[in-house]
């Protein structure tokens, strides 16, 4: 009975265009827009000048997580940026003390050279202070 499956195929396709984003209909976008880029970017975090894991730090001050995605960097790993922003949002410092570490968040901006090797450039977006997670 392939005609039943074909009808369901058409109905679900149209329904996803109308109600995509509301379960059980989806947008299926994911990284579909990533084809219009000439550069790529991955988030990067530094502590005292050295690359570090953001989850090893807390009580951030001076870093605005709402700016992490606001700069519209050409990244297709948005989930990493969203998570990093969520981490900083959940670990803000409400005290008057200032953390001992100088931290910064930015992106490693990537392009591909003619010989196929990856060229990278670090672009820092936010700078602040933080404490090492106890």
């Amino acid at each position, binding site marked *: 009975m392939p005609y*039943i499956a074909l009808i369901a195929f058409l109905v679900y396709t149209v329904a996803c265009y109308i109600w995509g984003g509301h379960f059980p209909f989806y947008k299926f976008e994911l990284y579909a827009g990533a084809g219009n880029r000439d550069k790529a970017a991955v988030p990067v975090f530094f502590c005292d000048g050295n690359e570090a894991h953001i*989850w090893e730090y807390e009580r951030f001050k001076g870093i605005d997580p709402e700016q992490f995605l606001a700069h519209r960097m050409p990244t297709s790993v948005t989930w990493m940026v969203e998570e990093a922003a969520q981490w900083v949002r959940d670990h803000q410092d409400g005290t008057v003390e200032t953390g001992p570490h100088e931290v910064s968040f930015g992106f490693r901006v990537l392009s591909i050279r003619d010989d196929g090797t990856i060229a990278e450039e670090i672009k820092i977006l936010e700078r602040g202070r933080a404490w090492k997670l106890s």
Partner: protein
Amino acid sequence: MEAVLIGRGIFGICLGLSWLNSMTHILQSQEMIYTRGMQRKVWAHPAWKRLIPVTIPFALSCYLFSVGRYEVQAGLVIIGAIFWIRRWEISLWHKNIVVRLGKYSPSGTCLIAYLAGYAIAPHFGLDPQSTGVEVACGGLASAWFLSGWKKIEYSGWNWMGKRTQGLLLAERAYIGNPLFKAIRRELVQHPLALRTIGFLGVFVEMAGIIFCFPEYRMAYAVIINLLLLGTIVLLGYYEPEWMLIIIALALM
């Protein structure tokens, strides 16, 4: 008949995986689960008090659906539970991230499609179970087609080009398993390989309509599983539910 039973069993496992996925994201909502992976400190989480009482009837319903007993009632309980846990999961993350990042529940979607087919079949003098399977297959076929079509809709044919594929791999040359990172970094230097990856990915996805035809279902399911294995290596996405649900429906 045995294939159908195995297929239904796998369908039940897929529903369980969907549940487990949402449950994990609830228990790890304070962690960086996507970037960092699972963390162990979940046992003291207060969410267990709500999760356990719902997980037990959910698991029972999955079992009943798998063995074909009370399948409509069991199916409705499962859908209600998946809807509930997704709402909870979405509420814990900032600004609708769960939806925006494209987190799907393919087996939940297939179950809704199955039950819709099951419900309308008697009105047309059709067998409810086989009609349900056909409707679910049509829905899953559409999901795969749309995954490919959206890439063309948003990026045009550029999607299949060496630059797009190279940049996707370049980003992931900094993330995840060291062996996979090395493979991605190496592949970036081979334009033909990049074009082949881009073309095959979109072609296989857009060929989803093939899954509407019963005689080609298992072959397409195997190809999709190969594609998803490639996705693990090249992009680092693990999608066991997507891998199994297509096998389940092909067997049913």
